[in-house]
């Protein structure tokens, strides 16, 4: 196959504002996912991570809208796709897992049926066959006593169990890409790790790519091949896991990593940065991080930096990247 599996280019998503012109929550965003790759997308709350995920699914939350750019799946733009065709792509070729598994499940339908429905709709299976598929999927997501759990209702399940069901629904049709948007944040820490490993293993087994969206940098360190750091609707740094973790170049990435450090003094750096959150207007003419950047210089206020390569496979959106 030539070209990336998912290719988001120059994406711009705007939300209307009561007081002024529309606000770009995502602007000029590029993101590529190769087949079989696990890409971690990190950034603080409000960076636009979820809006990005929903844009790829063509489900931008109201009243936002995509005003520019493309989001391609194998060269086919999802943003201009007809509703009918989208219906066949969603769940079958791209699926999504979010943070609130119990809310995602239909409360009045046995969970096994909800998995089987996917097999009937997307794989064209019959009643009996789809039930078998669902049972097999329950075993795959390591639910104990799958025959009994098939008939269980969502309210009878724990959060972790519900998330396994959601994963089963998302993966039962063998999608090419799974978007996990904060998929573990509602769970216990120990369960988080289990779910994450399960998700990674299943994705690997099916040769699915994965976009793992999280606020927790630690999570990405374990499972991702590639990391993209998002800040105020832009990718500020992207690179292989090793490169980003060992040689972070953008001041924001450094701050973010410091925030998750075991070293108290490093963590203090973040709280200082956070206190100084007087962010610049999401204007076009300055670096979006300039208000919080400890290394900001005059040029950062005058000229918006572009995402540029600082080492092979490692990009940063900064005029003065930290290079060691």
């Amino acid at each position: 196959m030539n070209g990336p599996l998912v290719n988001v280019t120059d994406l711009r998503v705007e939300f209307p504002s009561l007081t002024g012109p529309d606000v770009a929550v995502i602007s000029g965003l590029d993101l590529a996912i190769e087949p079989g790759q696990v890409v971690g997308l990190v950034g603080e709350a409000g960076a636009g991570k979820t809006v990005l995920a929903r844009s790829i699914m063509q489900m931008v939350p109201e009243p936002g809208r995509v005003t520019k750019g493309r989001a391609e799946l194998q060269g086919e733009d999802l943003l201009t796709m007809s509703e009918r065709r989208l219906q066949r792509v969603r769940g079958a070729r791209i699926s999504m897992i979010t943070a609130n598994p119990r809310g995602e499940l239909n409360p009045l339908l046995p969970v096994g049926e909800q998995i089987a429905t996917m097999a009937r709709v997307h794989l064209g299976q019959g009643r009996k066959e789809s039930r078998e598929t669902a049972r097999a999927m329950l075993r795959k997501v390591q639910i104990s006593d799958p025959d009994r759990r098939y008939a269980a209702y969502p309210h009878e399940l724990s959060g972790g169990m519900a998330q396994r069901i959601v994963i089963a629904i998302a993966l039962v049709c063998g999608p090419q890409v799974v978007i996990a948007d904060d998929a573990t944040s509602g769970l216990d820490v120990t369960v988080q790790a289990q779910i994450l490993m399960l998700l990674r293993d299943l994705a690997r087994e099916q040769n699915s790519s994965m976009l793992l969206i999280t606020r927790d940098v630690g999570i990405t360190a374990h499972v991702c091949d590639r990391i993209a750091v998002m800040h105020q609707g832009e990718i500020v740094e992207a690179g292989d896991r090793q490169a980003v973790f060992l040689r972070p170049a953008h001041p924001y990435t450094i701050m973010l990593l410091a925030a998750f450090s075991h070293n108290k003094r490093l963590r203090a750096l973040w709280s200082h940065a956070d206190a100084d959150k007087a962010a610049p207007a999401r204007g076009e003419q300055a670096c979006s991080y300039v208000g919080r950047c400890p290394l900001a210089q005059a040029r950062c206020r005058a000229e918006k930096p572009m995402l540029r390569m600082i080492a092979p496979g490692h990009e940063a959106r900064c005029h003065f990247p930290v290079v060691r």
Partner: protein
Amino acid sequence: MSGLPKFLLRRLAYLIPQLFGILLLSFCLIKTIPGNPAVLMLGPMAQPDSIAALTKRLGLDQPLPVQFLIYLKDLAHGDLGTSWQTTRPVLSDLIDRFPATIELVTFGLLVAILIGVPLGILSAMRQKSVTARIAELYGLVTGALPDFWIGLLLIFVFYTILGWAPAPLGRIDIAVIAPPTVTGFLTIDSLLDGNLDAFFSAISHLVLPVLTLGLINAGPIMKMTHSTMERMLQSDFSRFEVMSGLPRRLVMRHALHNALPPILTIISVLYGFLLGGAVLVEIVFSWGGAGQYAVQGVLNADIYPVLGFVLFAAVFSLFVYLLVDIAYFLLDPRIGR
């Protein structure tokens, strides 16, 4: 369905205290209405001592709690008292009249459901569409217009001008022989009797009052359907279904399934409410139903018909609520298990 009998028993256990409470409350309320029935019964020329004698004979000189206990004792023997206006036992009066009201209200509610539910679903499906706007306007109009006025309008158009509907004088044509009473519902009794003339006459008399009730009460049903459907369609599970590529029809069906309990609730509340609430429509169409009977009782200090009506209506409402509870139980696996 192993939990259903237990669930039902628990619900039934509440029935007796609920009925007792309703009776006690309505007894006290009705007794606060001023006016001595003895005075009304004997007329303006009565002597004070004959009024006193009748008051004593009716037990009205007893303290209130004693009167209530006497009423309860009679009730236990199936005696709901006597209406001084009709001079007949309240029980047989109500058995004559209650089915008329229930028949009217049931058909009216069916029409309301047939209008309200689909309109609510359609307007929730397509926000800001023409259908949604029409539905919104419709809800506003039904909330603002009184039902008797709609009834009069329908009579004016379909009886006076067009002459399609029969005269608004009761439940059946005077010239048609009414079928023997089995259920009290003329439509059913005439069919049981094989009397098609009576059946069509009953139906034609039902059309306008039923339409009146249906058109008005479709409003709240439509609004409830619209708002719950809208909420369900915006909920996380509907979004996840769309995100999983399920066909729109399936997403709608699942949303409707989840929206049904609140819709059922408003329907059951309307059902109980309309027994008395349809009284203006009953009057406009000279229906001779239980609501009219009760209102006559209130106006003439004739308390036993009123109490009897309250009792009948309460039993009926509680029965409807019980059915709704069973429906809930069957619809929603989270309830009562």
